[in-house]
């Protein structure tokens, strides 16, 4: 009859503390992590009352499980976007990459789009 026992309260429930932010950033950027480790991290964030962060981490773990042809297609899209001279198109692509959890690719594309906009500001 242990099912009714309350689990111990989590400290700072629902609060993104600086410590958690560091852990989240590490989970989102460290390349040596296995998908199971990222999922464990996601579970920890969900337990801590931060489901949005948990969801992003799960999406990130899914990136590695995508079929090869999907991954190749994503790479091809990124290459095309880095050839584009339309910053709005690049930003749209960045948003799409964000949605699948590829946040670094999205950030790189946004930086590229900003460069295109600055160039356009000067040269019209």
């Amino acid at each position, binding site marked *: 009859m242990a099912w009714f026992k309350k689990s111990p309260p989590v400290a700072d429930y629902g609060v993104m503390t*600086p*410590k958690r932010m560091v852990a989240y950033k590490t989970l989102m950027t460290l390349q040596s992590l296995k998908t199971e480790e990222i999922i464990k991290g996601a579970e920890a964030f969900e337990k801590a009352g931060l489901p949005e962060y948990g969801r992003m981490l799960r999406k990130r773990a899914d990136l590695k499980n995508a079929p090869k042809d999907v*991954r190749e297609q994503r790479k091809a899209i990124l290459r095309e976007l880095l050839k584009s001279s339309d910053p709005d198109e690049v930003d749209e692509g960045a948003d799409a990459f964000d949605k699948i959890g590829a946040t670094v690719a999205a950030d790189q594309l946004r930086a590229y*789009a900003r460069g295109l*906009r*600055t*160039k356009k500001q000067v040269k019209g």
Partner: protein
Amino acid sequence: MKLKAIAQELVNRAREGDQNAMALIRRTSDSAGRGSRKAKNAYTMIMSYIREHPIVSIPEHALPKHDKVSGEVADAIGCLCDHMSADWIDNPQNLGYVFALPSGGNAGLMAGAVILADGPDLTDERIYNLGAHILNDNERNTFYEGVSVGSKENGSQRGFTLSPEDKRVFNVGRAVGTARSIQIVRKGGDLAHHNECMAWELG
């Protein structure tokens, strides 16, 4: 001043690139390692402040979509756009335009990288020749270091430890390195040339 406030000030100064603050932290760490009780207390304070206040960089999506540039940087970007060719970039007299880019912050550097990426192939030889025109040995090496870092994540952290002038040269190198990595990716090369983490995500 209380120890906590001193620790806070030291960490903030070190993060802004103050070499004296960095040396003081290092010395405190050494003394703590040798067993000094006072240094141990101070070092604990410093480390707890660092843990509680990590560097929070502004995520790319939170930055404004467009940074305006003007003056010297706008002129340099305009000139790069108008004249970008193999002959132009190989001419040492034009190096000044590339070195004007950091005055516009990230906007100038990224615009420069985009224009350079649209230009002639940034081969190792071309980049080597570009750096060879920098007379100061230390600055030349910093430039090449910036090129090798390009758009990788650790680049911005390296900037914290450089003097303002070295940082400028380093950032010019980063713009050239970023442009080269964009060219490589456009041609179907490994995404890790542009950013290892991005390659992990999509690979």
